[in-house]
């Protein structure tokens, strides 16, 4: 699916994609019901001009359909400016299609889709890493509460938490949250 305000450019891009063996299911530009159209058409890839105001709409949709995200490929007409190129590449699953030459379209799309998949993996890894950091913080707090209330040293507080977790077959962070919540109730 191509989203572009300029029909002539969309035409060239469309021809290039067809030549590279892709099927363009829709060409839309500057319309109010863009979100509706994307839901109806369910494209495999969306191609959009970086300078198109509809980017915010498309990005929000990919947030809503987090279960089935769709790669969005961005292009800029000016590929001479390094910082603009960097900006395009910084966007999710984006790549430059400067000049829109037919022979360049296929490799660019392949790279964009690969980058998109990489990003999805990275995002999942990042989410896991973040939650473990928050969990460590909560465990620290729970340890602190036990040390203060029961006069334990740090080692003993940690062992007590671990034992509770093992006895109840739940994760350490879960027990730590309960300890913290219980302490809130008491104060």
């Amino acid at each position: 699916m191509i989203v572009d305000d300029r029909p002539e450019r969309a035409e060239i891009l469309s021809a290039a994609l067809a030549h590279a063996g892709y099927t363009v299911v829709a060409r839309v530009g500057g319309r109010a019901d863009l979100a509706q159209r994307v839901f109806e058409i369910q494209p495999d890839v969306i191609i959009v001009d970086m300078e198109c105001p509809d980017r915010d709409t498309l990005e929000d949709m990919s947030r809503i359909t987090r279960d089935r995200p769709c790669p969005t490929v961005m292009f800029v007409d000016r590929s001479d400016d390094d910082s603009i190129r960097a900006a395009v590449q910084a966007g999710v699953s984006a790549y430059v299609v400067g000049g829109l030459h037919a022979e360049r379209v296929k490799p660019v799309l392949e790279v964009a889709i690969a980058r998109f998949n990489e990003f999805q993996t990275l995002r999942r890894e990042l989410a896991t890493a973040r939650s473990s950091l928050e969990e460590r913080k909560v465990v620290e707090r729970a340890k602190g509460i036990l040390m203060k209330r029961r006069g334990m040293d740090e080692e003993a507080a940690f062992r007590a938490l671990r034992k509770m977790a093992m006895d109840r077959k739940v994760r350490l962070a879960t027990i730590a949250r309960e300890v913290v919540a219980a302490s809130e109730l008491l104060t």
Partner: protein
Amino acid sequence: MTPLRIGIIPLTDCAPIAVACERGFFRRHGIDARVTREASWASLRDKLAAGALDAAHMLAPMPIAATLGIDPLAVPTITAFSLGLNGNAITLSEELWSRMRAADGDATAARPLPATALRRVIEDDRRRGRPPLRFAVVYPFSSHDYELRYWLAAAGIDPEADVGLAVVPPPRMVECLESRTIDGFCVGEPWSSLAVRRGVGRIAITKLEIWSNSPEKVLAVRRDWADRHRELHRAALRALLEAAVWTDRAENRAEVAHVLASERWVGAPASLLAGSLTGRIALAQDGEAVELPDFHVFHRYAATFPWVSHAAWLVLQMLRWGQLARPVDVLDAAASVYRPDLYREAARDVGVSAPAADVKTEGTHAGPWSLAGADGATIAMGPDLFFDGGTFDPRALVASLTRSPIASPRVDLGALAALNA
């Protein structure tokens, strides 16, 4: 002269940046400002993250979302400058307005307008098996999104379940309302005024009325850029402080409208921009203009100060509506993005009084009040009421999150309470 690349979105509240450029405030502080108009918030964000821009006119929640890693690019971003207070409105289609008036005439006569008549319309649609009404905001991490949700939720409307919410870029809002793709929107000026002028929409309530003197846009920079360019950043803040003082004066507002009318800035008729800038807003095509002199506040009431408590309120909205799913220390997160320390340095340079405190409560002042400046002066402040009588105390953060029955948090509330005890 040191070059500074600034990105803006064509909206009335970019005024302090426009004035700093056009009236020589940047030049006076040794800055050669190179401004580009961006087509989308996503593009502005990507260019700032990638270093194609040094500074950006951003929605206040954007640098917070970037720093917390919940938008696609996750580059730590800070702000030391608020570009002003208020400036948005919720506008409904004329068709929806007639249905609301028929459903509950008394409720539609009240100001500030509650969403109770809207709830009656939604209930009626549900009984008849009609599809839900659709509303648009400009970006998921925006005060527009949080204001619209706040207004709906206060009337018992669940923004997640009872209506459809979409993102539409500001310049397409009016067209979407006209084609009935959406039934209402929350957007910055001049787009509500344009809907009114064309007779396709009616301003239901302004941001000023939802939460008086609430935060809107900021000047955002990457944290690593701010560390490497301390002097340039400080000089830019000095220029913007002076520009904000000038922009805020009532006698200069007509000229501000004239400056913004150019294609280089908003690219809309000066007569359209002048309404909200001079505080006379037409709520409907066939109605009298109402006087709202605080519709845009650029300097008074410490409008340019980056209140850490404002950022904390925004973080809470991200938690309330499930945008932020992991527990965080809210004030800590707010203070890692909002930097009153940097603001105070620049304010001292140009003789502007900065508040001594980093946080304040909200919803407790119905009229003028004052607070202490870091320099010992007294700063005059404006009202800070929420339209539904709500309050916000930065020392009791989680209580304000769990107070409303309408919320869709994805965070573990116990863990959140633990981190904010």
